[in-house]
């Protein structure tokens, strides 16, 4: 199994509003609900995105961190907002796939949101606090087997990517450890660095700086490959090799850089118009 999650996707409350949109959208500030705490990977991406979209939209995008219940509180808030394009939700696999399978919600993930844009993917890494007495995956499994039920692993709620990843790891390695739910990746990282929690399955984007600094250890990638292999060339798209990003050499990938001013043709097939307006604003940010 490969657990390669999408880190972020931008959606908006949805209803039959195709004909209700004023031509001058957006004419006032837009709210972007991030259903995770400030400082986590989704929040960080949201702040970069909102800043980048501001010039082309001509309006400010205000980030609102609405956390709790496996992200369903924030997503629910977005679902209840007026379907006018002025309330967006920036979520990830946990908020728009995993939690929907477990929590009883007042919204339908497929019916109540208008998709805007899928943004990024990331493989899940298994990381541990720096003083765990293991230096590779084999030693980690041996340590966990020698201490059944004693180690603790952070999740960002039941059914989150971190939780599903941890369950899969347990199943495949015959290990047993406890899960501790957090409101988001940022507080989980704080406790992992502080040594209050032992393990976590987490995205590379939120862990690699700590791994590089020696504040936590990385053991495995829960994916067949850490990133797509970089083709030598595929015009008109440029491929830029990124640096290998961890001491264990796990995550080495490439970033696809679409050419400017060449939006994919499929965008013109979608409606209503304001997701397109938002998408057209968000898309060029990745080309920088």
């Amino acid at each position, binding site marked *: 199994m490969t657990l390669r999650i999408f880190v972020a996707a931008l959606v908006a409350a949805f209803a039959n509003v195709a004909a209700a949109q004023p031509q001058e959208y957006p004419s006032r500030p837009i709210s972007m609900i991030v259903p995770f705490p400030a400082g986590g990977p989704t929040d960080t991406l949201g702040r970069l995105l909102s800043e980048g979209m501001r010039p082309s939209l001509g309006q400010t995008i205000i980030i609102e961190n609405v956390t709790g219940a496996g992200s369903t509180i924030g997503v629910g808030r977005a679902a209840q907002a007026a379907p006018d394009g002025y309330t967006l939700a920036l979520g990830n696999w946990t908020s*728009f796939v995993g939690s929907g*399978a477990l929590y009883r919600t007042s919204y339908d993930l497929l019916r109540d949101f208008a998709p*805007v844009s899928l943004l990024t993917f990331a493989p899940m890494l298994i990381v541990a606090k720096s003083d765990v007495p293991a230096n590779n995956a084999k030693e980690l499994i041996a340590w966990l087997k020698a201490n059944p039920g004693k180690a603790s692993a952070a999740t960002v709620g039941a059914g989150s990517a971190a939780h599903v990843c941890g369950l899969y790891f347990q199943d495949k390695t015959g290990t047993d450890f406890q899960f501790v739910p957090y409101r988001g990746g940022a507080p989980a990282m704080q406790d992992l660095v502080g040594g209050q929690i032992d393990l976590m399955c987490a995205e590379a984007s939120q862990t690699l700086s700590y791994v590089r600094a020696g504040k936590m250890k990385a053991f495995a990638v829960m994916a067949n490959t850490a990133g797509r292999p970089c083709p030598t060339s595929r015009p008109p798209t440029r491929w830029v090799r990124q640096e290998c990003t961890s001491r264990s050499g796990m995550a080495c990938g490439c970033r696809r850089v679409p050419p400017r001013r060449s939006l994919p043709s499929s965008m013109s097939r979608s409606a209503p118009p304001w997701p397109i307006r938002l998408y057209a604003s968000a898309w060029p940010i990745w080309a920088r």
Partner: protein
Amino acid sequence: VIATPDQQTPAGLAAFHKAEIEKWWPIIKGANIQVDTH
């Protein structure tokens, strides 16, 4: 890793989102994960 240009469109996200739910919900529900609701 940045999503491909087609996946970045509203239609691309819609198709991807639906496929992810169809792939993962049976696995998650089958894992008998309990949600702490108190």
